[in-house]
């Protein structure tokens, strides 16, 4: 209806302000993208603002090969997808016991999971680092997968238990009368019916894990195990990178996220606007 602001602002000024702000917000993406495709001499001669005269992939290819970027992408992907699958599964099991089973001490467990989700990672970091070293899992992907499966599922358990508390009990009762066991009810009724919520959790777990920094930084020290965010930040200022190669490195960090955003857009907006997530 436009009741709030209609009379006070002229449309032209409003549009100019919005567009100006949009330009500021998108400028970093734009400038990274155009300079990644230049050669260093062209950057020196013509500066950062003009479009490249010829599209050159040299900087991107050279950076890709120097940091062995395919390997980093693969590491990030293996870790994120494993965590997303395992943490969603673990959340489902936990929430089945808490939200549907309503076992004794349910609210205490839920509070513990919420608290776990807000803990700063530095309060777990050193003991985790020490344990992982002691059991020979230091600098392995599996250690990071286990840790984030548990951390993400703390959030998932809380969210899913709330969703499950409104689960239609009549369905469960009917299945029970038909003689279905608890495992069978989980597999054939609860799981299929909660797939929409599980897919939101899956998507968020994947992206959150992809974006993680603190714990992967201390647990994955060797080059061959590092994830994309770690590898890109560690290589800043190393390798005698020139200006366009540095720009290429930033672009390579940005691109996967844009691809995920396009793929997951629907699930993400649904999750973000639910407001309860993150």
């Amino acid at each position, binding site marked *: *209806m*436009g*009741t*709030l*602001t*209609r009379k*006070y602002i002229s449309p032209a000024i409003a549009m100019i302000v*919005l567009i100006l*702000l949009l330009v*500021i*917000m998108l400028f*970093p993406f734009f*400038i*990274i993208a155009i300079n990644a495709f230049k050669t260093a001499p062209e950057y020196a001669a013509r*500066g950062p*603002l003009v479009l490249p005269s010829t599209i050159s992939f040299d900087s991107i290819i050279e950076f890709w090969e120097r940091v062995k970027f395919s390997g980093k992408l693969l590491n990030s992907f293996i870790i994120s997808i494993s965590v997303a699958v395992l943490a969603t599964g*673990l959340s489902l*099991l*936990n929430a*089945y*016991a808490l939200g*549907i*089973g*309503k076992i*004794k001490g349910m609210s205490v467990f839920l509070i513990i999971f*919420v*608290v*776990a989700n807000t*803990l700063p990672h*530095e*309060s*777990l*970091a*050193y*003991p985790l680092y020490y344990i992982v070293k002691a059991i020979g899992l230091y600098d392995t992907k599996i250690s990071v997968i286990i*840790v984030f499966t*548990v*951390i993400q*599922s*703390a959030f998932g358990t809380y969210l899913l238990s709330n969703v499950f508390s409104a689960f239609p009990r009549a369905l469960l009762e009917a299945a029970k009368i038909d003689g279905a066991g*608890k495992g069978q009810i*989980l597999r054939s009724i609860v799981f299929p019916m909660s797939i929409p919520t599980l897919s939101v959790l899956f998507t968020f777990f994947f992206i959150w894990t992809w*974006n*993680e*920094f*603190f714990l992967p930084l201390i647990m994955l020290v060797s080059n061959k195990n590092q994830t*994309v*965010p*770690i590898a890109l930040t560690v290589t*800043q200022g190393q390798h005698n990178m020139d*200006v366009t190669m*540095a*720009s290429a490195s*930033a672009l390579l*960090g940005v691109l996967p996220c844009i691809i*995920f955003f396009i793929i997951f857009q629907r699930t993400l907006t649904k999750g*973000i*606007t639910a*407001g309860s997530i*993150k």
Partner: protein
Amino acid sequence: MKKIEKSSQGYFVFLIPGLILFLIVIAFPFIANLGISLTKWNGVKPPQFVGFANYHKVFTDAVFWAAFRNNLLMIIAVTIIPTILGLILAVFLFDYVSTRFNMKVASFFRAGYYLPQILPVAIAGVVWGWILNPGYGALNWILTRVGLGAFTHNWLGEAETALPSVMGIMIWFQIGYPLVIFMSALQRVDPQILEAASLDGARWRHRMQIVISVIIPEISVVVLTTTIAALKIFAQIYVLTRGGPGHATIVPSYFAYQNFFEKARVGYGSAISTVMTIIILALTVVFIKLQLKMQEDE
């Protein structure tokens, strides 16, 4: 009551894997961290019990207080400014742009403002590190070309500009989050109420009050989650400044990291992280209580 107890039997087994993993990955490390905070330990030799000496040191350490002050300033950049800007933009896009133009135009702007949010903070740091680079960065280049050469800086390398630069980056990064949440919350605002307020001759401020009163649950969620995020800031600092120059941009989580992994003062690092944990948990409890109280008042 009896019936519920009976029907809930046998579910505990589903919680067992989650519980065991939780104890190993979160509960035990957390308690161990508390224990370590009472010791002097370099990570190698056996730890020495020192009581609360590390905590005493935390509260008298000028570096910790500098870190804490920077953290409070980060709340301005991560919570306060983006929440206010997000609210204004959300109302504006929802109420003005979507009606003057159409919802597609409004959604387009929303998506554009949201874009930085899809990046990992570390990558946002890499992008801005490039733009602000004192040698080849685009910002100094632009300033020089438009005749503002006197305003060029080593943005992240000078004590006066480092923290404001990081704060500016965080504002850029954060605006999209409140904007998206508020825009969806605004769908609950009854246009008729606003229409009525408009007949009353109610001004912009009054209408803003109406909007805020409706979407206050979303505002409090945004304030809580972003304040906690501000208190946990690490990656941005690690990527952009490593806490420097001097202690100009140090934050508690980075200070804890330094003590753990660079200075081998593990006990002290644990004490710092425990103090931050207590602050974050206390904040969470206060916010949740406030929210419950607001729900009761309604």
